[in-house]
């Protein structure tokens, strides 16, 4: 229920089947004035981070959750006080509040920035070291608690806005804070690891993307019986083709790497190995084979591993594919991927480029059933036609879900891929046995 003039914005359904979303960061805090469509919070579902725009113009009265908290879809996320006129808006600019509790560090910087953008006065507050999380005036809902509790929360790095007070009129009591920061007198139920007494340690909360990565890696390794298969591929001719194409298209936005060529060969290979281009629906016990190959590109970003997806890789030209790969990975690194871009892959390719090493054992990007790893391409002496020759050799290190992909099929699939890569012209030549012309 909302009071007159208030607007309660609920966590929207950010994609089919989303039941909750994790708060990544707030761009506004209670007391801030926001304009309609201004980004107010970044939330994350699956692996997509989404900036949620303010649905109305108004002043933020209350927010739910802080960075790392999961908020259920449909529950109140932000309470706005609607502004009736611009005059009121300027009058309602929050003044610098006297020392209030500091927001958690992760939240403080963008919040302070947003505040500085919204009102110079808030910037002044930051100058005085008072990260103003509570507006001074107006009818905004001030956190009710004692000065001593404000100090306790500040020292513990807890935002009082995230707490629900159990005292009279919703006032936050010492016991409410103790429940969050842990009462030294009572055991901490959530931590089994004894706190390190070494002063030279830094504690990093496992939240956000890192938590998601951790959960998904654990889940994949726990449920999928991986088996690895490594084969070496002679990429001398592939390298020759790559060099030629790059020389021919010197004006291209960026030179070709192996990746689009490998992805194209993989898409071609999978036509004959549909059991490897699959998403497993565990709930229904169904393997969903896909005709199109949607390739996940494992991408290192400042936040951690993301896997943006290039759709329908098999129907693209090599240049189109190169551009698509660059576009989705750039957006992933810039944290600008759409939710669609970060889901729906049917197989994943992981390449560490020059860091590729000789062998790796990649973890399958569930619910897919295979992942192809590219190791470093190096020139090696090999025996060719009875003589020692210098050839460029690259290993493919792949993992398969042994529940659904038999060793024979996996090996045959990699051998087919190897054949394409060693004779790169065949990637581009129709296969008459499959009715292609």
């Amino acid at each position, binding site marked *: 229920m909302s009071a007159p003039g208030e607007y309660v914005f609920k966590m929207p359904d950010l994609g089919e089947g989303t039941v909750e979303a994790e708060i990544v960061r707030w761009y506004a805090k209670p007391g801030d004035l926001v304009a309609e469509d201004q980004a107010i919070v970044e939330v994350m579902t699956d692996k997509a981070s989404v900036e949620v725009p303010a649905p109305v113009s108004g002043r933020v009265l209350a927010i739910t959750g802080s960075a790392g908290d999961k908020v259920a879809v449909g529950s109140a996320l932000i309470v706005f006080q609607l502004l009736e006129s611009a005059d009121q808006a300027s009058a309602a600019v929050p003044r610098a509040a006297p020392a209030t509790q500091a927001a958690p560090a992760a939240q403080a910087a963008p919040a302070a920035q947003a505040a500085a953008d919204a009102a110079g006065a808030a910037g002044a507050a930051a100058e005085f070291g008072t990260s103003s999380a509570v507006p001074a005036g107006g009818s905004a809902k001030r956190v009710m608690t004692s*000065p*001593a509790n404000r*100090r306790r929360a500040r020292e513990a790095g807890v935002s009082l806005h995230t707490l629900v007070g159990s005292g009279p009129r919703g006032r936050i009591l010492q016991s409410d804070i103790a429940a969050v920061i842990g009462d030294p007198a009572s055991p901490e139920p959530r931590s089994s690891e004894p706190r390190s007494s070494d002063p030279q340690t830094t504690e990093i909360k496992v939240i956000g993307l890192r938590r998601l990565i951790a959960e998904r890696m654990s889940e994949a390794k726990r449920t999928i019986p991986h088996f690895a298969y490594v084969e070496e591929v002679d990429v001398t001719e592939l390298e020759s083709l790559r060099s030629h194409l790059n020389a021919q298209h010197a004006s291209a936005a960026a030179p070709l790497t192996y990746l689009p060529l490998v992805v194209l060969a993989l898409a071609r290979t999978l036509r004959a190995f549909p059991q490897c281009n699959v998403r497993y629906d565990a709930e229904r016990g169904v393997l969903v084979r896909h005709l199109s190959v949607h390739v996940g590109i494992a991408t290192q970003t400042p936040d951690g591993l993301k896997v943006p997806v290039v759709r329908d890789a098999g129907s693209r030209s090599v240049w189109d594919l190169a551009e698509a790969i660059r576009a989705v990975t750039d957006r992933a690194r810039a944290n600008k991927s759409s939710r669609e871009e970060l889901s729906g892959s049917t197989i994943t390719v992981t390449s560490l480029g020059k860091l590729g090493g000789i062998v790796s054992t990649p973890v399958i990007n569930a619910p897919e059933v295979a992942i192809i790893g590219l190791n470093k391409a190096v020139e090696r002496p090999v025996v060719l036609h009875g003589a020692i020759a210098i050839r460029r050799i690259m290993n493919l290190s792949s993992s398969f879900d042994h529940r659904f992909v038999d060793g024979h099929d996996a090996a045959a699939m990699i051998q087919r891929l190897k054949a394409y890569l060693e004779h790169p012209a065949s990637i581009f030549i129709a296969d008459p046995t499959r009715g292609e012309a």
Partner: protein
Amino acid sequence: MAQMNMIQALNSAMDAMLQADPSVILMGEDIGYFGGVFRATEGLQRKHGEHRVIDTPIAEGAIIGAAIGMAVGGLRPVAEIQFADYIYPGFDQIVSELARLRYRSAGDFFAPVTIRTPCGGGIRGGQTHSQSPEGIFTHVSGIKVIMPSNPFDAKGLLITAIEDDDPVVFFEPKRLYNGPFDGDPNKAAIPWSTHPKGEVPEGIYRVPFGKADIVRSGSQVTIITYGTMVFVATLAAASLGVDAEIIDLRSLVPLDVDTICSSVKKTGRCVVAHEATRFSGFGAEILAIVQEECFWDLEAPIQRVAGWDTPYPHAFEWEYFPGPARVGAAIKAAMDPA
């Protein structure tokens, strides 16, 4: 050690100082031949002579003005103003002359004047015999303001006041003259002989200014008070079963800020109680200091108990007096703010 009530303790202090220091003289209305309306100077004129224990006209401005002149001339006058309610005719002398003499003369002249005056209600005195004007004097720079709550402190503080080279206004809660009073007028009077602070040494001893007395140490709430309210607060806390730390300031100027703040920082809760009217009362200064010094340790808003902002009434004396019920309500508010 002897058993003394507060009157006897004050009498003993003046007697001892008259004996010890020939420059000490007493002056006031009816203090000599009659021995004072509250008997505080009984027998002192007979013992020390008319030239040292002087009856004055009913003229407070003249009493204080004369005391200032004597003090500048080298004496240590102890002037009695019969009731604090009567001090106002002398107020200009106190504020404009007495308090400033040392400043105005750059230290060349000073005035070791002690002004004793009974204050407070609870004796059916009505509006002209019940006032607690200490806050008016704490606001004046240059004078010290003292209010004892028991015979032992009264004697020791009065000796410190007489020996002090600067002016002291010495308030005596008259309801405490004959015994501790906890604010319940229906109880039988308790004499000081039943109270440990009724034990008073015969000779000269001093209780220092600027040092509050922790009457009861406790952990849950700090009650800052002085005068009659010390006993009212003690009863109020005891009847609530609250482990209160009760601080008797004794010396309002200079103020023992350290004792106040270390106690509030310990308990996190604070109640200030005085008999004087609330608005601009001395309690406001205590609240301000606690807020300034102890803000981040406060668990609850600071509570204040005081007399109502009206003249002290005759007919509704016990409705006006901030008794144990009102102090108790403030303690509850500090312990469990709504």
